[in-house]
């Protein structure tokens, strides 16, 4: 049984092809102005890598902010449902999943089956999401991918306003005027974000095993700050940005089986 899970995020679409619990291939594309087309591209890319055709797929499941625009979809999966399902699949002991994407961050508490118990969402506010790092990188005139390595060089952090991108930008500008070094400002940006995320996790009650997923999990600067802040065992799976898509593909497999009964 082969299924496709696609995650139509605000910045990128990720697609995963799953066969009997094994990932066959992955594909992605920028969401741009047409998330439907981007999803078609991401799926096409993944199909080619696995040497498969659209007709080989038993079930397509979509998740992500733009899931309504998904092509080929047989059904949708809530973003938190997908995260919890895949988080526990990849890391069976995990009871807390943190997903930090481009425009949203969420923390989910779940049971051993990956069923949601409670959650906290940071939505419609750019602070605490990838957009915050992007805006601060722009203010610092540093490439986004250089922010993490830069922050790791810092010996200390200068405090900045973490609760709003607009005010954070002014803070970064005044730090530049005060001639603070770029590594220290970069570290301050990640510390500020980690502060927000850790307070979300603490609102849920702390579980020792925490899984961090989403595109921002690939940023070593953020991971270092979050580890310092949470002081827990934060596990980052391979391909953290594809975890939501994996959750959709896993749910697709369950649904496809039910359909056969």
């Amino acid at each position, binding site marked *: 049984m082969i299924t496709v899970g696609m995650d139509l995020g605000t910045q990128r679409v990720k697609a995963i092809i799953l066969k009997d619990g094994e990932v066959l291939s992955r594909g992605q594309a920028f969401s741009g102005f047409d998330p439907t087309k981007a999803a078609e591209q991401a799926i096409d890319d993944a199909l080619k890598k696995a040497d498969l055709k659209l007709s080989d797929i038993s079930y397509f499941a979509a998740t992500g902010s733009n899931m309504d625009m998904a092509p080929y979809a047989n059904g949708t999966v809530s973003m938190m449902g997908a995260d919890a399902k895949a988080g526990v699949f990849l890391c069976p002991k995990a009871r807390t999943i943190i997903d930090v994407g481009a*425009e949203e961050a969420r923390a989910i508490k779940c049971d051993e089956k990956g069923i949601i118990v409670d959650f906290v969402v940071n939505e*419609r*506010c*750019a*602070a605490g999401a990838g*957009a*915050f790092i992007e*805006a601060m990188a*722009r*203010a610092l005139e540093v490439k986004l991918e250089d922010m993490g390595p830069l922050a790791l060089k810092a010996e200390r952090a200068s405090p900045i*306003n973490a*609760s*709003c*991108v*607009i*005010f954070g*930008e*002014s803070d970064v*500008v*005044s730090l530049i*005027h*005060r001639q603070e070094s770029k590594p220290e400002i970069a570290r301050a940006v990640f510390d500020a974000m980690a502060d927000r995320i850790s307070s979300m996790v603490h609102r849920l009650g702390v579980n020792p095993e925490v899984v961090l997923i989403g595109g921002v999990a690939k940023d070593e600067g953020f991971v270092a700050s979050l580890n310092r802040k949470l002081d827990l065992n934060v596990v980052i799976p391979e391909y953290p940005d594809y975890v939501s898509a994996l959750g959709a593909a896993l749910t697709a497999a369950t649904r496809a089986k039910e359909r056969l009964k």
Partner: protein
Amino acid sequence: MINEPSTAKGPEYWRWKEYHRVMPNKKWTNKDLITAGVDVGSVGSKAAIMINGEAYSWGITRTGSNSPESATKALNYALEDTGLKSSDLKYIVGTGYGRVNVPMANKAITEIACHAKGANYIWGPSVRTVLDVGGQDIKAIRIDETGRVVSFLMNDKCAAGTGRGMEVFADLLQIPIEEIGDISLKVEKEPEPVSCTCVAFAKTEAMGLLRKGWSREKVLAAYTRAMAVRMANLINRVGLERELVVTGGQSKNIGIVSRIEFILGVKCLPMPKWREDGLDPMVAGALGAALLAKALYEKAQKA
């Protein structure tokens, strides 16, 4: 960068005008008690000078990256054309976001106390609720008939609805900031408020609405409405008691003020004619600070 759009892009729509004023028909002598209030906000720095507790002059400038410099600049601006020197000022109170960085101040007092006092001075003892919309904060303050604070509430540190957020919006829609209120009212039918108020996302969301064929007026109306809802909620949470007034830079945004009035079903006390010879509600905090400076000076003399 949103912060300081380059001039290469064209006009800077967000840039509001700095100005200073000396009240006509007022003179000072060496026998007068002259005090000052300096309100260093996150976006604007304001200084006001009072003679025996009466407004005499003020200056409004943009806050730079250095708070002490901004404080000095605002105070010098208020002193301009008055014949006064800073050494003539008997007592100075610093207030606002950067109040600890007002080097010449004898004392720092929170902007909440100063706005309360200033609103009482501008509009008189009937004021009970003050909405102060500054560059970075929104505060709803309940006061008594003497201008003392009874209780207050502040927004989270979020640019939505603040002066800074409006500056970003002015630039985005390419509308001069002074006209943003009037233009937001030029819609036949009030649109639904935007659901996402984050200024960082507003850029993409507003572009999306414009692409959908919405006019700039309609986009602005939907955003202003969402802001007004936030402010009205804050007022309701602190408890609305008449009379209501609006202070801070955004008191000049008629689009915000009229929508708050509509949502709450209450008229604000009319804004003073600050363009002619009235007091500017943007300097309410500095005026309040100068009044508190007078009281502090008198208390020190008695002791």
